[in-house]
């Protein structure tokens, strides 16, 4: 009885205080129509489909392309066609913006700096304008939002992730159709501290393009191929193998699936929706997959992939007109996907519970391409509840890493971290 009372009381007190599902969706809008928009969704309802504008009295910009959380108080948004990296608070208030990184693509962070890929050829840094022949990665200091360093990588670098102090950058070479260079096949590895290239991993697969998901030491990288002779594929990159200096061929596993949109679930698996298209036949082939990266890596791709998604998600997504994003809330396990529908009508946000039961559909805006969950308690620890088991030899430097591989100085109570190659739940005592 006492327990029940306490439970009821605490439920009453706590439930209204913290929303559990706090989701930001970036709607890309139409290209050159300046109608990129932010939608905010909270506990089963859309709060606003023009959230940024409501909060700031101004428009977001043209074609927002990525959004990440940096710390408790800061998020970064890459707004591609506006050439802006926009910093906002979790409440949606604009903090700062920089145009020093034109043609910005994707973002990652170690909590101190934001790293952003760019297809452009110049970058405004604190040391003046830097010019590059190919694409580059810029390092933005969040204390003053200035670019402190930048390094050239391959042509048209796309996805970026950080693992144990190293940046992994997927090069696409996506301008190959117009420019005088071929598609890229490499992943550039950069030391985040020094911004110096460490090595390049050649995957042999062209056009490493689109969102990149991370699960511990593994990255899920999509390649749409060239739509002609080279088919789409997914590269599962083992960052640890790269770190250990293994030969390129042992650092990745190639799967004959497309993973156009992908995300990481709470078990550390990648969920992916992909489509393969051929200009020869005008035919599509769709892939829906759950990828267990450790099993895939261990078996050389023979095991670890199931052509299924949790619950009714598979059927629901198959019924979509144009699946455009997939996401799992790392804090709660609730799942999301978007349907862009027709390209000039509002897209739809689908929500499933952690078991894959469809909870609802919500009208958002044009081309909803990117989703980010905010922590329910407001405390961002950098943790992505990603449980892919670490394999191979272990680091024994005594540093504490979160599951994204970021070094953590002050771990928070009750969260999962990695130290000396082992996961543990941090307790302050």
């Amino acid at each position, binding site marked *: 009885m006492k327990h029940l009372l306490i439970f009821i009381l605490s439920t009453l007190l706590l439930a209204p205080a913290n929303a559990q599902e706090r989701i930001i969706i970036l709607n890309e809008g*139409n*290209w*050159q*129509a*300046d*109608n990129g928009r932010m939608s905010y969704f909270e506990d089963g309802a859309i709060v606003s489909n023009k959230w940024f504008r409501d909060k700031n*009295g*101004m*428009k*977001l*910009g*043209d*074609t927002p*392309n*990525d959004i990440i959380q940096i710390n408790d108080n800061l998020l970064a948004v890459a707004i*591609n*066609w*506006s*050439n*802006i990296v926009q910093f906002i608070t979790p409440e949606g208030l604009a903090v700062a913006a*920089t*145009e020093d990184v*034109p043609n910005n693509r994707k973002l990652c962070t170690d909590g101190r700096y934001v790293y952003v890929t760019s297809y*452009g*050829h*110049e970058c405004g840094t604190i040391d003046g304008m830097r010019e590059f022949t190919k694409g580059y990665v810029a390092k933005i200091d969040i204390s003053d939002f200035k670019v402190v360093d930048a390094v050239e990588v391959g042509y*048209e670098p796309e996805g970026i992730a950080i693992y144990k102090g190293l940046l992994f950058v997927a090069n696409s070479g*996506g*301008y190959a*159709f*117009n*420019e005088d260079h071929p598609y890229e096949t490499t992943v550039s590895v950069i030391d985040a501290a020094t911004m110096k290239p460490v090595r390049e991993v050649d995957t042999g697969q062209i056009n490493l393009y*689109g*969102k990149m998901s991370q699960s511990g030491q593994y990255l899920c990288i999509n390649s*749409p191929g060239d*739509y002609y002779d080279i088919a789409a594929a997914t590269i599962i990159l083992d960052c640890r193998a790269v770190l250990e200096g293994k030969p390129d061929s042992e650092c990745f596993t190639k799967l004959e699936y497309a993973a*156009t*949109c992908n995300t990481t679930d709470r078990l550390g698996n990648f969920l992916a*929706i992909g*489509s393969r*298209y051929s*200009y*020869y036949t*005008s035919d*599509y082939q*769709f892939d829906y997959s759950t990828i267990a990266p450790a099993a895939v890596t261990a078996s050389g791709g023979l095991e670890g992939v199931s052509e299924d998604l949790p619950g009714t998600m598979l059927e629901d997504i198959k019924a979509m*007109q*144009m699946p*455009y994003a997939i996401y799992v809330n790392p804090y709660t396990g609730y799942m999301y996907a978007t349907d862009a*529908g*027709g*390209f*000039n*009508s*509002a897209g739809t946000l689908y929500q499933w519970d952690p078991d894959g039961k469809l909870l609802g559909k919500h009208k958002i*805006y*044009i*081309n909803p*391409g*990117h989703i980010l969950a905010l922590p329910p308690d407001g405390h961002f620890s950098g943790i992505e509840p990603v449980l892919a088991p670490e394999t191979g030899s272990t680091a024994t430097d005594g540093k504490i890493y979160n599951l994204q591989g970021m070094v953590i100085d002050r771990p928070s109570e009750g969260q999962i971290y990695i130290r000396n190659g082992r996961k543990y739940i941090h307790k302050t005592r």
Partner: protein
Amino acid sequence: MGWRCENTRIALKITVFTYRHILLCLLTVTSTLCPAFAAINTARPDSIRPDTALRELDVTAKRRPLATVQTIAGSDLQSLSSTSIADALKYFAGVQIKDYGGLGGLKTINVRSLGSQHVGVYIDGVRLTNAQNGTIDLGKFSLSTLESVSLYNANRLEQCQSASEYASGATVYLQTRRPTADSLTILAGAGSFGTWRARANIQTKHRQWSAFVDAEYLNTKGNYPFRYKTEYEDTVGHRRNSDIEYWRAEAAVFRSGFASHFYFYTSERGCPGGIVRRLSDKYVNVGREWDTDLFGQLSYNWQPAPRHRLKFIIKYAHEYLRYNTDYPENQNTAKVDNHYWQNDAYASATYSWTPWQWLNINAGYDARMSWLDADLKRFSVVRRLDQKAVVAGRATWRGVSLAASMLFQHYCDHTITHVGAADPLSRFTPSVTLAYQWRSLSLRAWYKKIFRAPTLNDLYYTQTGNRNLKPEYTRQWNIGAEYNWSHSGFSFNGQADFYINRIENRIVCIPLKGTYTWSMMNYGETYCRGMNATLNGTYSLRDWRFSLLCSFTWQKDLNHTDPDDPDTYKRPICYAPTFSMGATAIVAWRQLSLTVSRLHVGKRMWSYADPEDILTPYDNVDLKLSGHWRGFIASLEVNDLFDIQYEHIPRYPMPGRSFNFTISYSIR
């Protein structure tokens, strides 16, 4: 995931005019703006005796009650704003002009929401073509050499019409003025946004021969100011990279049934993108375009015997286009430097037979061979043979006229492009018109079915082309009435037409499901009901002449594509206004003339996603004042007098108020 801009762009570059056309595709091709205005034409009774030998000029200038036509001719045409033929056409009922802003911005015409590729533009009866994308940029043609501009819905229904003239949903006829005396005219002008122009015209008439040469140069910086002011935005700026410099030269020689026309145009222009949020002017999206177009056409209208007429046309056209984005301030896009070459050879033969006065039979055949080459990756030369044949008949009995035609079209492509050529396309399409004339009143009803074949870009453009495209069909039904009245210095013409048109298998560029690319697809069906009306009156009294030309367009153009999608089904097509109207008043006194034009275009939606995604209604008032003194003509134009900020395409602002002053001197 996100759509990668460069891929989008590739997709969209299906048309050559990258930035501007991108939107054309992106935004579902239908629809647009919609001005309207009317046409005047002193309606003449149908007094042409079929067996009378006629010069081409007469044929096209006469009014036929059978056709739904609007015309602006002669002094009325010269009283309008003179920058391009788009300025004249925007006053017609049922017309929507799509304009990407500025003198260099692409200007296309859409009639009754059929889509710009269903509108054929003809110069002296010969179609202007663009095998690549099927769209004609009206900005490349000048009003200065024209006698009249006419818009026909469905067919023109004249004798000796070529098969090609039956092959579009609506037709715009540009009729070149035949010189009537020797003259030399030079003109100089200056206008807002750093605009300078010069023109020279020489005309001669000698016995049955007449000829002219007309050359024009224009240069504009174009950096015009714009302002977007809403509750969440106050963006003030100058539209950069909207300059254009062009040379245009035309020449023509006529001798009764013989007509020729030679045209040369070369330009360099900036292609500015949409105005989007930026922190500064550091980066701009620079695309630049160079065009060179030329054509030569010869036609001969021959009457070997009283009841028989023959017409032959040959034409050769060449178009070159270069598009370049390799500029340091352009950080957003791939460094594109592409070149496109098109050649087009055309020949037509038409025979018209009038066995009895009440019956006319018309038969025509024409063939067009087009070549398209481009230095795109995975592209190789495409060749298209397009043949058309038509049989048409027209019978008249006591004021009742019946016209019917059957058109056959055959398209056959050849290419070694990776995907191979599309299958040949052969189709028959009919049209029928019934009219009744009683004194000054005529009633008409017509039906026309026609298609547009996929263009070479639609089929073969690298990455977006789709060789499996089907033709896009339109079916139009129309009933209308026209009334003419004139009495002692006063003349009046009024017409009203109600129409329905359906478009099936629309050819649009849409994103592929779950990939990053876009492709041409047959997707969409529209159902449009509408009404066009025009009222024109003129009154002359001693030294005074008053003209009033009014047009009204009301239409419901609805999306009938997907019954399962409540967001779009039976909702208006993007960019199509429900109501628009135009009015032009011209007052002339002796050597002075003042023209005031007002154009109202109602609200248009541009996406289905949010009710606030609309283009606001606008009212545009243009003024033109001109005066003659001896050989001099001076004119002052003020366009958009009240500096209304408006757009045809979201984020492509129009220039606002501008001034234009010209002075010319003629020696006769």
